[in-house]
């Protein structure tokens, strides 16, 4: 954002700034109307793939959750192999599934593992490249070749064996009857699309599979919790500059104008033993965010209480440039909020009157990119419901929406500060840090072939 030297220049850039802000916050309103962001992972496997399996050598039950060997077992190319219907979903910390050996048959040559898409469906998992398998007859782990490595115990009738991928540590792991038997690095098969795979190879062998529809023998939740804890412990070893949290909290309170909290906070930090002094040298430039603290607090409280007229009057007195242009984003948001407040108390006639006078002029404005229109329509739609809070536009009546309006006005006031350098200063330090954290975690996952958990603040908080 360029700032020119003349007064006129400043006004222009301020207008642009407040316009950008307004539109930005309209977007936030849209976000506020949806639930907490939930990441959509790919569909998980939930049954066996009957189309792509070595049909001649096995039969899959109608429920697609168990197989029986029907071949003769003459050599190494008549294995009855079947993959799951979907590949392993990767946007998570761990993936896991189990098999139950109903009958180990004549030779117990059962295997569980992971194979890639073009796997030769007549070979044991692990006998070909880009596959791995834990075999029941010898307890060996096979990784892409005919010779296996010592890995774990053998397994047979009555055993429950599990196979999993830990995307955090990039390892395969296998379990027997609820206990881990071993892990192995996943490096070679890293960016391949892998399918959970089971196989049978001698007469009478029968295996049932569980993709999570039933309780696992292995305590997966505990394993995941332990993994997260381990990662957390590594992270905890990082050192931070002293009192950095206090500084960031303080800056947050200043930024949003929570003056009373700030005063209590300062008092409390001074009387801590030892007292916490957040000195200027730490880089906290109070001047910028101390700006108009009391006025911002006052206006925020008015908006939070639904006293929109009072808030607009204060703005006219203290920061006329924000509400000067009747078609500005600030005016728009406040007029909308006034409309919503009428609805909240059931004053529908006043709402309609207000809407006709103040809101109608915002419809069809070309440069506002439909966001104004959408919000006006949502507000007006509230009129149609007996219980507007329960409608899909009910978000407008929530506390959090009042907060969005209050935050917008707060940001606009901050932007009238001649010392305010650019739009980016209108996010609190805390917000900037959290955005950076999220972006870094996402990029890190991308660099990992898209595998693993992303960072979600809401998950951490709940």
């Amino acid at each position, binding site marked *: 954002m360029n700032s020119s030297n003349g007064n006129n220049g400043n006004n222009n850039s301020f207008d642009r700034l407040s316009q950008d802000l307004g539109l930005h916050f309209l977007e936030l309103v849209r976000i506020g109307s949806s639930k907490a962001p939930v990441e959509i992972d790919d569909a998980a496997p939930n049954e066996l793939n009957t189309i792509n399996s070595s049909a001649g050598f096995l039969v899959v039950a109608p429920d697609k959750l168990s197989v029986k060997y029907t071949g003769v077992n003459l050599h190494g190319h008549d294995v009855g192999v079947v993959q799951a219907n979907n590949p392993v979903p990767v946007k998570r910390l761990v993936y896991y599934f189990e098999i139950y050996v109903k009958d180990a048959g004549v030779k117990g040559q059962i295997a569980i593992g992971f194979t890639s898409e073009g796997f030769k469906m007549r070979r044991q998992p692990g006998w070909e490249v880009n596959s791995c398998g834990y075999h029941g007859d010898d307890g060996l782990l096979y990784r892409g070749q005919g010779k296996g490595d010592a890995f774990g115990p053998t397994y047979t009738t009555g055993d429950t064996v599990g196979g999993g991928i830990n995307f955090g540590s990039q390892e395969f792991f296998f379990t027997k009857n609820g206990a881990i038997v071993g892990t192995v690095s996943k490096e070679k098969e890293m960016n391949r699309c892998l399918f959970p795979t089971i196989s049978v190879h001698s007469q009478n062998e029968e295996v049932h599979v569980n993709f999570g529809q039933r309780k696992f023998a292995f305590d997966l939740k505990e394993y995941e919790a332990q993994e997260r804890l381990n990662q957390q412990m590594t992270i905890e070893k990082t050192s931070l500059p002293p009192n950095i949290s206090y500084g960031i909290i303080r800056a947050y309170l200043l930024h949003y104008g*929570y003056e009373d909290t700030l005063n209590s906070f300062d008092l*409390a930090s001074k009387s801590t033993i*030892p007292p916490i002094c957040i000195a200027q040298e730490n880089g*906290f430039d109070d001047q910028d965010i101390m700006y108009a603290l009391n006025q911002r607090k006052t206006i925020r409280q008015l908006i939070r209480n639904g006293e929109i007229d009072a808030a607009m009057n204060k703005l006219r007195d203290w920061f006329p440039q924000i509400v000067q242009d009747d078609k500005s984003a600030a005016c728009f948001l406040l007029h909308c909020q006034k409309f919503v407040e009428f609805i909240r108390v059931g004053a529908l006639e006043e709402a309609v009157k207000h809407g006709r006078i103040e809101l109608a002029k915002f419809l069809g404005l070309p440069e506002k990119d439909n966001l104004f229109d959408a919000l006006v329509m949502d507000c007006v739609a509230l009129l149609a419901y007996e219980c507007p809070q329960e409608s899909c536009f009910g978000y407008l009546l929530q506390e959090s929406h009042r907060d969005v309006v209050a935050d917008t006005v707060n940001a606009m006031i901050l932007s009238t500060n001649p010392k305010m350098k650019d739009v980016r200063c209108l996010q609190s330090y805390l917000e900037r840090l959290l955005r950076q954290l999220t972006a*870094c975690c996402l*990029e890190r996952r991308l660099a990992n072939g898209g595998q693993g958990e992303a960072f979600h603040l*809401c998950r951490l908080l709940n």
Partner: protein
Amino acid sequence: MGTSKKVITREEWEKRLSDVKIRKEDMNKLVMNFLVTEGYVEAAEKFRMESGTEPDIDLATITDRMAVKKAVQCGNVEDAIEKVNDLNPEILDTNPQLFFHLQQQRLIELIRNGKIEEALEFAQEELAPRGEENQSFLEELERTVSLLAFEDVSNCPVGELLDISQRLKTASEVNAAILTSQSHEKDPKLPSLLKMLVWAQNQLDEKVTYPRINDLSNATLEDPVHLQSHQQNSIQKERQWAVRLCYGPHQTNLLQPLAHLSLLSNFTQM
């Protein structure tokens, strides 16, 4: 060196940052969690009023917890123990290490106040039995009692026990135990998130060049630079420092007459 790494420009990175959805409510919760865990009751109350955020713990319990913490910090350990038991007798029952540390602190305070006889009696009656049950308790007990052997406690090897930091350590332990007994995490979440940021950036550095936040206290993005120009930047800084040193704080313009260059030449050999 850095050339095989993926490079993300400032513009591209800022786009990603703006795509991130952070909810105000969640940030408010983080702040409230901090105020509550650190025990700032009034601030938490005010924050609830000003932001509408509900605390994740009953504020009344904070006052009690802070009273215990304060008592230990001031050396009133008996008082603290009484208060903890009023709050929840199970805390000390289920936490022998904490109880031992509190008793140890009591002993330290007796020694600090010169009550030698009382200290010895207390050590023998209350602490020695604990020491018999547990090797590390015994070692701690021996360390504490050894304070009595020195005339000049400020210079003895276990002098740190008399330092206020010992009180703070015990106070912190009690605070954590109370929080845990209330099914609340004993540490605020914010510092962990900050550490996670530092860690995530370090991890990402191995594979990608991108704008970093190097100074957490002002959360400013710093442009990705290639190693070479980064070195040049530091050479520039050294020159400026040298000029300032020689010619006073206002002279930072490096386009000075050539005569001065000879003085700077020492610093360019980096």
